[in-house]
C-alpha cells in the first residue's frame, strides 16, 4: 500500500519537473523581460496623468526617465530561443533519473517504510497490573487536577506516592491534605518523612521545621522525635541524638521494624558494626519493613551466594560480621573458616579477617546446636508475620486459603477478637465467591468462632 503511495509521489515529482518541457507552446511564447516592465511603467504614467494624480511637469520628467531606461533595456537583452526537442528530451530523462535515484537512495538509507504509525489512541492497552495501578493513580491525579480541594483524592495519593518512591509528589500531596484538613500532627510528621525521603535521607531545614510542628501538635510522637534526633545527628550533635535514640528504643517495642532501625542508628553512632543489610533510616517503612526474620533471610542468602559463587573480601567480612551481630557465633566461625579458605590468595583480606576474628566474643555463650538467638522472642516473630499477612490481605486482598490462614493464626495466638475481625473482613472480601465463603464458614465452625 505504501509503495503505491511512494510511486505516485515519485510520478508527481517527475511530472511537476517535466510539465514545462512537455508543453508544446513553450517554444512559441515570448518571455517577458525588462522592456515590458518599462512599457508598463509608461502606460501607468499616462493613467496617473489622466486621473489627475500626477501633474504634467513631473509626468514629463518621469516619461523621459522611463523612456531612457526602456531604450537601454530593449537594446540590451538577448532574445530567448526555443529549445530544440533533443535537449528537452535529454533534460526530461536526466530529471526523472535524478528524482528516482535520489528518492530511492536517500529514502532507502534513512527511511523505515514498513514501520507503522503508532498514534497513542490506537495503542493496545496492556492489562498488566502495573498498568492498572498506574491507570488508577492517573485517574485520581486527574481528579485532583479538576478539583484541587478534593481531600479524599489527596489523602489517597499520598501514601501511594510514598510506596512508589515518588517522594516529591508525596510532599505536594501531604501539603494539600494539611491545607484541606487543617493541622494534624501525624500527617505533618508524614510530610516531614516524605521530605526526608525526597532529599535522599537528609533532614532538610523544611523537614525539620515540619517535624517540630508535628511534635507541637502531637507531643511525644516517636516518629517526629526520631527524625529530629536524626537531624541532630546529621548536624553533628551525635550525643544529643544518641540520648533520644536510647529513649525511643523501649518506646517502640510494639513496632519491631522501627525499633530495629533505631537500634541500628544507635549502634552506628556508638561505632559498632551494624548488621549486614540493615536499612538506613531514610527508608523508614510505613508498615512493612525489615523484620528480624527478614534480616536472617538476607544473611542466609548472602551465605548461599558466597558458598556457591564466592565473593569479594568485603562480602565475606560482611557475612562474618552479620553472624556476630546476630549472636550466631558458631556460624560466624564457620563463615570465617570458609572466608579464610576463599581469600587465601589475598594477604590484605586475610589480615582484615584476623582483625574481625579478634572482635568475636568467646564461644562459650550458646550450647552447640541451640537455636540461634534472634532478636525478639519467637512469639514476636510470629506476631510480626501475622501482622504482615493481615496488612497484605487488607490492602491487596488474597485467596480464600490466605484468609483462612489468617483467621487460624489469630485463633492460635488466642487473639479471638482479631480473629473475629479477620473473619468478617474475609467474608466481605470473598463475598463474590460462594465456594470460598462455604470454606470459611466451615473453618470458623472448626475454630469455634461464632458468627458476628
Amino acid at each position, binding site marked *: 500500500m505504501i509503495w503505491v503511495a511512494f510511486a505516485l*509521489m515519485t510520478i508527481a515529482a517527475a511530472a*511537476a519537473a517535466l510539465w*514545462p518541457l512537455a508543453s508544446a507552446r513553450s517554444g512559441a511564447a515570448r*518571455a517577458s523581460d525588462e522592456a515590458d516592465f518599462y512599457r508598463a511603467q509608461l502606460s501607468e504614467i499616462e493613467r496617473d496623468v489622466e486621473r489627475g494624480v500626477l501633474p504634467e511637469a513631473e509626468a514629463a520628467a518621469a516619461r523621459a526617465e522611463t523612456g531612457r531606461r526602456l531604450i537601454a533595456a530593449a537594446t540590451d537583452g538577448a532574445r530567448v530561443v526555443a529549445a530544440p526537442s533533443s*535537449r528537452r528530451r535529454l533534460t526530461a530523462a536526466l530529471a526523472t533519473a535524478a528524482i528516482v535515484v535520489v528518492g530511492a537512495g*536517500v529514502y532507502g538509507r534513512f527511511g523505515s517504510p514498513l514501520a507503522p504509525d503508532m498514534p497513542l489512541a490506537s495503542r493496545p492497552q496492556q492489562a498488566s497490573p502495573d498498568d492498572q495501578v498506574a491507570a488508577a493513580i492517573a485517574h485520581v491525579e486527574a481528579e485532583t487536577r479538576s478539583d484541587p480541594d478534593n481531600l479524599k483524592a489527596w489523602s489517597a495519593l499520598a501514601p501511594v506516592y510514598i510506596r512508589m518512591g515518588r517522594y516529591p509528589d508525596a510532599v505536594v500531596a501531604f501539603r494539600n491534605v494539611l491545607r484541606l484538613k487543617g493541622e494534624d500532627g501525624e500527617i505533618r510528621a508524614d510530610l516531614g518523612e516524605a521530605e526526608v525521603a525526597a532529599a535522599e535521607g537528609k533532614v532538610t531545614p523544611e523537614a525539620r521545621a515540619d517535624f517540630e510542628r508535628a511534635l507541637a501538635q502531637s507531643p511525644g510522637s516517636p516518629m517526629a522525635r526520631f527524625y529530629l534526633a536524626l537531624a541532630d545527628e546529621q548536624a553533628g550533635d551525635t550525643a544529643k541524638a544518641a540520648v533520644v535514640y536510647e529513649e525511643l528504643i523501649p518506646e517502640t517495642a510494639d513496632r519491631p521494624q522501627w525499633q530495629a532501625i533505631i537500634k541500628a542508628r544507635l549502634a552506628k553512632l556508638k561505632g559498632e558494626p551494624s548488621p549486614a543489610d540493615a536499612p538506613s533510616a531514610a527508608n523508614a517503612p510505613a508498615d512493612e519493613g525489615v523484620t528480624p526474620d527478614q534480616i536472617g533471610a538476607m544473611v542466609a542468602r548472602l551465605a548461599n551466594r558466597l558458598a556457591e559463587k564466592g565473593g569479594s573480601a568485603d562480602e565475606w567480612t560482611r557475612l562474618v560480621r552479620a553472624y556476630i551481630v546476630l549472636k550466631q557465633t558458631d556460624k560466624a566461625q564457620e563463615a570465617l573458616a570458609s572466608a579464610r579458605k576463599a581469600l587465601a590468595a589475598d594477604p590484605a583480606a586475610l589480615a582484615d579477617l584476623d582483625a574481625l576474628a579478634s572482635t568475636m566474643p568467646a564461644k562459650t555463650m550458646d550450647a552447640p546446636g541451640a537455636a540461634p538467638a534472634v532478636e525478639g522472642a519467637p512469639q514476636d516473630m510470629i506476631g510480626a508475620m501475622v501482622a504482615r499477612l493481615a496488612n497484605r490481605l487488607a490492602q491487596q486482598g488474597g485467596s480464600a486459603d490466605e484468609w483462612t490462614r489468617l483467621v487460624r493464626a489469630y485463633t492460635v495466638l488466642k487473639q479471638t477478637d482479631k480473629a473475629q475481625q479477620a473473619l468478617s473482613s474475609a467474608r466481605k472480601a470473598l463475598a463474590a465467591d460462594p465456594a470460598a465463603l462455604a470454606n470459611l464458614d466451615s473453618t470458623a465452625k472448626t475454630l469455634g468462632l461464632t458468627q458476628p
Partner: protein
Amino acid sequence: MIVELGHYALVMALAVALVQTVAPFVGARRGDLALMRVGDSAAVAQFAFVGLAFAALAIAFETSDFSVSVVFENSHSAMPAIYKFSAVWGNHEGSMLLWSLILAIFGALVALFGRSLPARLRADALSVQGLISVAFLAFILTTSNPFARLFPAQEEGQSLNPILQDPGLAIHPPLLYLGYVGFSIVFAFAAAALIEGRIDAAWARFVRPFALVAWIFLTLGIAMGSYWAYYTLGWGGFWFWDPVENASLMPWLAGTAFLHSVAVMEKRDALKVWTIFLAILAFSFSLLGTFLVRSGVLTSVHAFASDPTRGLAILAILAFFIAGSLTLFAWRASELKPGGIFAPISREGSLIANNLGLTTACATVLFGTLYPLALEQFTGEKITVGAPFFNMTCVPILLTLGLLTPVGFSLAWKRGDLLGVAQRLTVALAVAFAALAALFAFVRGGPVLAPIAAAVAVLIVLGTLSEVAARLTRGGVRADAILARAKNLPLSFWGGACAHIGVGVTLLGLAATGFGAEAVISMKPGQTVQIGPYQATLESAAPRQGPNYQEMVAHFVVKSGDATVARVESARREFGARGMTTSQAGIVTLWFGQVYVSIGDGDAEGGVPARLYWKPLVTLIWLGALAMGLGGLLSLADRRLRFGAPARARANAATAARTA
C-alpha cells in the same frame, strides 16, 4: 504510514530541489525558455512536498505518536492540543523543517506571482533558492531527521515542561523564521543579479515586497521575544545582548539598510552595489544566527542540544554560501552599470550615510558577539560582553543615525536643499533641545545616555511629523487642499513616516528605562512601598493550588494618594513533580508606563521578597515596534493592481514605480 509518507515526501522535495537548481540555471545561460520554466513548476512542487512532510509531522505530534523520536523527546500526551502543535517547531529537527517549509513557500510565491518578472532573472533566482533548499534539506535528512523512528515505541513522551506552554513562546520562532527566510529570497535575487551581471529598477520593484515582508516579521519576532522575556523572567528586563538576540538583531540592521537601499534602486537606479552587498549581508547573518543556536558553540536558553556533527555541517553550509556569495560579488560587481548620479547632499547621500551607519552598528554587534566565543576557543578565557560594551559602541552610532533620520526623510532626490530642510526642522530641533536641557536639569547626576536618547527620539518624531505637514500643505493650507494632497501622497510615504515615528517611539520607551524606580524589599502583609508616583501595598500572601502546580500568590493594591489605581497579583509557582519554579509577574499598565511586581520565595509570616518597578513609558518600546510593522504594511500595500493579481498583499506582481 503517514509518518513514512511524510518522510518520503521530504526526500522527494530534495530531489525536486535538485532539479530546480540545475534546470533553470542551464536554461538561463542558454536562453531556453522551457528549461527556465522548469524552475517554476519545480518550486511549486517543492512547496507541495515539504508541506506534506510538515503536515505528517504535525499529525504525528497531535496524535502523540511516540514511535517518532522527536515526538517522544518533545511532547507528552497530557499537553494541550495547541502546544502539541507548537512543539512541532520547538525542537531542532522540527524547526529546521519549518525553515525549509517557509523557504519553499517563498519559492512558490516567486514562481506563481512572478510572471511579469523577466524570465531569466526569475530562473536564476529560483535556481539559487533551489540550491539553498538542497543544502538545508540534505542537512535535515542526513543529520537532523524529524522522521527518525524509535522502536519499541515508548508509552509516554518525555517533555511536559510547563514553561514552554506559553503562547508568546509558541509564536516567537515562526515569526522570526519568516523574517530570516524572507531574506534568503532577497539573497537569491541578489545572487541572480550578480550572475546575470545586471540589476535595475525592475529587480528592485520585485524584490522590495519580499524584503518588506521579511523585515516586518523580523521586527515583530524580535519584539515578541523581548516582550516574552519581560513578562516571564521576572525582573523586568527585555534585552540582554544575548548572543542569540544579537544574532537576530544583525540581520535586522542589515535588512533595514537593505530596505532603504532598494527604495533608492527602485526610484533612482542608484546604490546598486550597496543593495547587493546588503542583501548578501542580511542573509549571511541569518545563517550565522542558525549556526550559533544549533552548533553547541553557545550555552544559552536558546541553544538546542548540541551535536558536533550538526555544528560542522551547518558551518560548512555557512562557509559555502557566505564565501561563495562574497566571491561572486567580488568577481561580478564590476559588471553592474553605474546608476543615476546625485549630489552628496541629497536623499541618496543621506541613505548612503544610513547604510554606513547601520552596517557599522552591525559590525560592532558582530564583534561583541563573536569575540567572547573566539577568545574562549583560543585561550580558554571566559568573558562576557554585555550592555556596557554595546552602550559604548552600537548605541552612539544608532543615536547619531537617529539624529539624521528626520533630515534624510525630508531631503529631496538627486539634489537636496539642506538649508530648506534645516528651516523645516527648526521647530523640531528647538523642542528637542528644550527637552534635552529640561531632562538634564531634572535628572542632575542621573543617567547620561537617557536624556540624549529621549531628545533624539523627540527629534525623530517631531521631525517626521514636520515633513508630513510640509508635504500636506504644499498645495496650500486650506482643508480641502490638504485632504487632496493626503489622498495623493503615495502609501509608501505614509508607510515610511509611520515606521520612522515608530522608531522614535521605541527610542523614547528605551530612553525612559533610565528614569524608572525600583524597590527590592521583603514585605509583610499591610506594608506599603513607594514606587515612582505610586504606593504599592501588599494585601495578602497565601498559598494556592493550581492544576499541576502549587503557588504562593501575593495581592498588591496600587494607590496614588488615596485613590486606588489598580490591583496586581504576582505569584511564584512550584511544579511539584520537577521542582521547577516559575515567576508570574504582576503587570499593570497605567497610561504608557507599567507597574511591574515580581515576588520570590517566602510566605506571609516570614516576609515575601518582592521586586517592584515603576517603568514609565515602557509600553512605548513595543508600541513603537508595532508602528514599524504597520509602516511596513502600508509600504507593502503601495502596489497598484495591474494584472488582476490576487488580493494577497505581499504577492502582488510588479507594477509601476512612482517617482517622488
